[in-house]
């Protein structure tokens, strides 16, 4: 009764035959995927200027710099920049991350040139006006005060601190009040001057545009950008897995609910066992309504509104954890249940049926995740970020189908060290 177009659609999955890729002379990689079904266009991308370059006493500098780029350029004031953007109904944001500084934007296709011009000016000629730097500082300090009251954020931050001692992943991207207070306008100028540059920069454009036109526009705006001294991001230091069970609680008086995070260090995105681990994670705490965790902690015990697991490996080995929001009186009981499920997951193979369900889920949801221009843009950006190859999504169903229950068990055993789980709690 429905029209089955899945065959024709699989041909339109992103791949080498329909993603246009060009590297400009200065190293910037431009990816374009045309989609004339919608009048809009999405521009996403990143540069290699993340908080790996920050000193400990200036945490938050990468994000501060990124945010301040749109606060004034040699061409336009803060107000003029946003007047252009908002008058066009466009959005543009630039955010500092751990490994990269990312940007994302959306506009009607008729305004793409404007968007790219504003982006290029912000990346190349920001002026960091003093009063805007102070406006941002006040906003950050308020956000940090709000963060200190947020049980979910504090449990996650505390978890990172105990799992990654002395490692960049222990450092919050938004810094601490004292490091934000210490950052000067000079620091922003210097961070921008030193670390921003074309090498390693990737820009993905998806929407109602022709590839050749995008290449020409981007080349015109960014093709002559040079930073000969742009440093290569430092390698991540080793991150030994915890050698003992670690538990830390942050007291946030007056709150009604506590947040709990239980986890370990997981695989990086490029790890060979990433897909088995991702399928395993889906079974552990995502599939259906939050997988086994949802079934045990929410459905059977009624202990939490949310209890899910997440595998967050990217450029490096991010955490693999279970997170739940529970009544402060039930924290111990919830941790116990989570621990039991992790134990079962790491010593006993998942069933063939569970694996088949998750495989089918991964393959079936691919077209749904690529439905919008922004979904497509982040997907093709990941191809470049993790060096997956342009045909990755076309090969993906087969890669998923090949995973066995043994491979999942092996990855679960590898990462989940039951004797050395880290537990972070934030609440009253």
């Amino acid at each position: 009764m429905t029209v089955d177009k899945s065959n024709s659609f699989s041909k339109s999955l992103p791949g080498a035959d329909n993603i246009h890729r060009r590297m400009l002379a200065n190293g910037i990689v431009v990816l374009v995927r045309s989609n004339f079904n919608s009048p809009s266009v999405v521009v996403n991308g990143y540069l290699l200027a993340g908080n790996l370059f920050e000193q400990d006493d200036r945490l938050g500098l990468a994000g501060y710099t990124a945010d301040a780029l749109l606060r004034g350029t040699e061409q336009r004031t803060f107000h003029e920049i946003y007047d252009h953007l908002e008058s066009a109904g466009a959005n543009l944001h630039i955010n500092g991350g751990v490994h990269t500084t990312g940007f994302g934007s959306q506009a009607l296709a008729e305004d793409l040139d404007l968007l790219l011009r504003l982006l290029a000016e912000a990346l190349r000629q920001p002026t960091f006006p003093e009063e805007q730097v102070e406006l941002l500082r006040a906003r950050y300090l308020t956000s940090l005060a709000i963060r200190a009251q947020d049980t979910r954020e504090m449990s996650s931050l505390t978890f990172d601190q105990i799992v990654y001692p002395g490692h960049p992943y222990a450092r919050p991207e938004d810094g601490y009040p004292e490091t934000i207070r210490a950052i000067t306008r000079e620091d922003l100028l210097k961070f921008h001057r030193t670390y921003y540059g074309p090498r390693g920069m990737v820009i993905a454009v998806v929407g109602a545009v022709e590839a050749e036109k995008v290449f020409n526009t981007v080349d015109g705006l960014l093709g002559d950008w040079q930073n000969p001294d742009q440093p290569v991001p430092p390698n991540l230091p080793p991150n030994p897995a915890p050698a003992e069970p670690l538990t830390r609680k942050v007291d946030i008086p007056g709150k009604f609910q506590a947040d709990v995070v239980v986890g370990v260090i997981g695989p990086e995105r490029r790890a060979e066992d990433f897909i088995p681990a991702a399928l395993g994670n889906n079974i552990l705490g995502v599939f259906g309504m939050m997988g086994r965790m949802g079934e045990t902690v929410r459905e059977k015990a009624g202990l939490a509104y949310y209890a899910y697991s997440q595998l967050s490996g990217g450029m490096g080995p991010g955490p693999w954890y279970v997170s739940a929001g529970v009544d402060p009186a039930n924290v111990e009981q919830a941790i116990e249940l989570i621990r039991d499920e992790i134990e079962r997951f790491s010593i006993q193979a998942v069933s063939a049926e569970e694996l088949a369900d998750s495989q089918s889920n991964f393959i079936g949801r691919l077209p749904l995740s690529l439905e919008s221009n922004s979904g497509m843009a982040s997907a093709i950006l990941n191809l470049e970020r993790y060096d997956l190859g342009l045909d990755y999504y076309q090969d993906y169903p087969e890669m998923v189908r090949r995973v066995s229950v043994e491979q999942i068990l092996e990855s679960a055993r590898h990462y989940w060290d039951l004797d050395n789980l880290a537990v972070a709690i934030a609440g009253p």
Partner: protein
Amino acid sequence: MDNSFTRLELPNGLLVLLKEIHTAPIASLWLWYRVGSRNEGPGTTGISHWTEHMQFKGTPRFPAEVLDKAVAREGGYRNAMTFMDWTTYFETLPANKIDLALDLEADRMHNSEFDPEEVESERTVIISERQGHENEPMFLLAEEVQAAAFRVHSYHHEVIGDQADLETIHRDDLYQHYRSHYFPGNAILTLAGDFSTNAMLDRIRELYEPLPGGSLPKLKIRPEPVQSGERIINVEGPGDTTYVEVVYHAPAASDPDFFPYLVADSLLTGPSSLNVFGGGISNKTSLLYQALVDKELAVSLHGGLTATVDPFLHTIMATVHPESTAEAVVEAIDKEVSILQKTPPRQADVDRAVKQARALFAYGSESITNQAFWMGYAEIFDNYEWFLSYLDRLAEVTPEQIQGIAQKYMRRSNRVRGVYRPFDRQEIPA
């Protein structure tokens, strides 16, 4: 955007809207019920939302775990939302699997069991959901402000319900609520995506026409009397941050004033999106952002109107700058509003708001799920034409109408002003 769609009513009263979109092999089904917190009174607040949760516990034919897995197995996603005027359930799936969604929604319109044990385990889940909200100062403030704005009308309480009722509502209350609101005549089925309308209609008739009709319990909506005099709310709680919320009584979505009010709000607090999925745009050139954030009275500002069946609120929320005060924020809001009351905005600013709405529309229309959402949402408070004519009606708004809105609605006597302040450190309860 191709705007053709099919709208018809089945003999049992079920309203059906179908829209073919062939850009991706996806379809999205939404089942809407005209019931929400608006239908509740003291003793049963939160019952619509709790009923929604119970609809995920399965039926004899589709036990819970079967239901969840069946959708996830196809790569689809599903969820539900309860609001003041409605409760809605949706599944987005590969188009050739959408029959599963049609089948399970028809089934759970009548066959959910509300097992007493599951009701009890869900009680704690919902109380936990409420506790999660209570962790947020803005929720604590908004709940009190809304309650003060509606002394009489059932928009008085939050959708999640009051703690007292969440502790005492019984299984039979829930089941009764379910049986009396979940039937074809009180529902709207909306479906967008890659299908052929005729074949789809045959299937919908086959599944939904045999479902028995029903009759709604008598609902007495008590209109909120005109407010006479500003109401002031103070909330105290943990933290170091002060928040301000100012709300004005605003028109219902079907009121002709709603469209000029949308533009007025867009000028004051920035463009709002009707999308559940899809991008938004920033508000840094809005009047209040410039007056509050650029002037260092607040660190953030947002606002908006809500499309509702009965008149609801126009909300303005600000996070106060650490060096400023709630009073200074309110004073600056008053100043901007009074300028709008005295002088109509420039035509160019109105045109700009319309262009912003057009862009937001384009972003939202990329999602088939959104397209199906829009049809049902608009039918709840008016009809789908409301939505299709949305951009044209915004474009007809004149600067004088906006001035008129500011004069008619944005008066102190028509508002509630609320402030959330941090406790003194010594006062934090143990």
